[in-house]
């Protein structure tokens, strides 16, 4: 199983886990790190290390909010010298749910490619979905 650390500005990480639990139940091997006004990056690094120290040679996926933000940059410092850690930026709830549902069946590399493949489809519009799915109905008797 790929372990997950969600690291974001503010309460977003914690709230993403709370939202995911409403839809999939409570999960193990998943942590939230929040970066708040006045926090130092050393403090952020320490929070990462406290979690990552639990693991040795195990796959860890770090999900961050924006490319180049402090959560991402700090995660990058740890990941760059560790082939068992990958960092994704641009996390949203559909992607998080997908990762949780696939992390037992996929290894880190497969999971990361999968996330990149589905990512664009996680943002959509009502109009597009209405047009797309109505056709489907007309073709089916049921």
């Amino acid at each position, binding site marked *: 199983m790929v372990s997950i650390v969600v690291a974001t500005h503010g309460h977003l990480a914690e709230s993403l886990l709370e939202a995911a639990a409403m839809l999939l139940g409570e999960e193990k091997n998943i942590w939230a790190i929040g970066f708040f006004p006045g926090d130092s990056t050393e403090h952020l690094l320490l929070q990462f290390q406290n979690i990552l120290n639990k693991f040795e040679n195990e796959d860890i996926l770090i999900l961050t909010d924006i490319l180049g933000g402090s959560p991402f940059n700090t995660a990058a410092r740890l990941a760059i010298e560790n082939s068992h850690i990958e960092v994704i930026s641009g996390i949203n709830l559909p992607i998080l749910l997908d990762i949780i*549902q696939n992390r037992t069946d996929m290894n880190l590399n497969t999971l990361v490619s999968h996330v990149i493949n589905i990512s664009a489809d996680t943002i959509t519009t009502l109009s597009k979905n209405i047009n797309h*799915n109505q056709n489907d109905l007309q073709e089916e008797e049921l």
Partner: protein
Amino acid sequence: MIISLVRIDDRLIHGQVATDWVRYTHCDRIIVINDLIAMDEIRKKLLLAITPAGVKTSIITIGKAIEAYNNPKYKDLNAMFLLTCPQDILSLIEGGVSIKSINIGGMSYKEGKKQITAAVSVSDDDISCFNELYKKGIELEIRMLSTERKVNWMEVAN
């Protein structure tokens, strides 16, 4: 037709269904069975628009559900039945649909209803329907998510 889940949930397709139950059942199709919604073009349109990836949705009347259930064309179809109330399930059974277990996912509170769990509130008529289903030997399990413990109807009914 393989009915992989019969769920009562008056929110019909929403996050828990789209995320947890679709994957849990591996269903091909979500079949929303409700006489009023099947005739409501706007609600149908919206339900179709939110169909989760990898599955299809039908919104049909009780009568049409019974027809489809008996149609050999759909013998290999893995279907998730979504309904809003136990009354409609009794009608399905009276129409010959074989149901062994019912997942009670969500029945919202309205005045005159009794709240029995966080997500389930029932009227007197709901209670007598559930008791009738129970007498037929059908499992009645209350659960929002597949990962939760099943709470049996009889644990909370009285």
